[in-house]
């Protein structure tokens, strides 16, 4: 089914963000793992896999709309050097992605592409939840201090 070019364009922008997200979270996950922070590794690894599934849904939708999914583009990846910096980079990432998704949803609504809108709303829901978790981490870091916070992120074998 032929989709509107504006919709295909915005879906491709969302796709670029997802592809970038996969890489940033994946590398962060494995950095946490290397240091022994299993809890953080688990969280970021799952996020990365979820991003891949979301990218899959967006690609499928673009193809259905007879557009060309752009897998070439990748945004800037921000990698922290310690857990605090990493959490900060990831939070900044979410704070850019959420408004982008909202704008894309508005555009879909305007063009009455309610199925794309629904797909994006599902992604937005997940991304907001993830941001909520990040917000909690920032709170805990501040309340517990870095050392106590990190201690809670180590899991025994």
């Amino acid at each position, binding site marked *: 089914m032929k989709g509107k070019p504006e919709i295909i364009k915005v879906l491709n922008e969302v796709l670029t963000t997802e592809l970038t997200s996969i890489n940033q979270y994946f590398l962060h996950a494995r950095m946490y793992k290397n240091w022994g922070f299993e809890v953080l590794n688990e969280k970021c690894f799952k996020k990365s896999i979820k991003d891949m599934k979301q990218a899959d849904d967006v690609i499928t939708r673009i193809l259905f709309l007879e557009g060309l999914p752009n897998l070439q583009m990748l945004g800037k990846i921000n990698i922290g050097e310690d857990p605090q910096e990493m959490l900060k980079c990831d939070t900044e990432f979410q704070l850019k992605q959420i408004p982008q998704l909202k704008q894309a949803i508005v555009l879909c609504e305007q063009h009455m592409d309610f199925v794309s809108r629904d797909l994006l709303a599902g992604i937005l829901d997940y991304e907001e939840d993830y941001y909520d978790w990040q917000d909690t981490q920032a709170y805990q870091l501040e309340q517990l201090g870095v050392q106590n916070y990190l*201690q809670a992120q180590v899991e025994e074998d």
Partner: protein
Amino acid sequence: MQGNKNVIEGLNTLLGYELAAMDQYFVHSQMYIDWGLNKLYERINHEFDDEKGHATKLIERMLFLGGEPDMQTRVGYKVGKTVPEMLQSDLRVEYEVADKLRVVIAMCESEKDFVSRDMLMILLDDTEMDHAHWLEQQLGLIEMLGLSNYLQSQM
């Protein structure tokens, strides 16, 4: 089967390191339990078993090659007094073992003893990926969590 003299000598050198590592892990594991650091005890006791397994493989192979395993020599044995010192000393032993393993592996290759080489590869993999990596992680955690928090996690 009569083995190559150089290979048997190389395996004996490695045995000296493995026996030292085994003894060191043994006494460290008992020190941890004495201090009530039960998680460290569990892990180090498991390393002790691993090193015993490594020594077993070396002894088996040497006997098969008609050599005489040297059970007397210990290389690089040093017991620490505090947890960071103990972990540091264990890591140093693992690094030394890994270096020595690489030398003997290269030698097995040049002497065409491919079965000994294969066996040593398993030891090297354990040494690098399991033992040394875990010890590096612990020392890193002590830095990042502080010693008191780290020790609290090991009770």
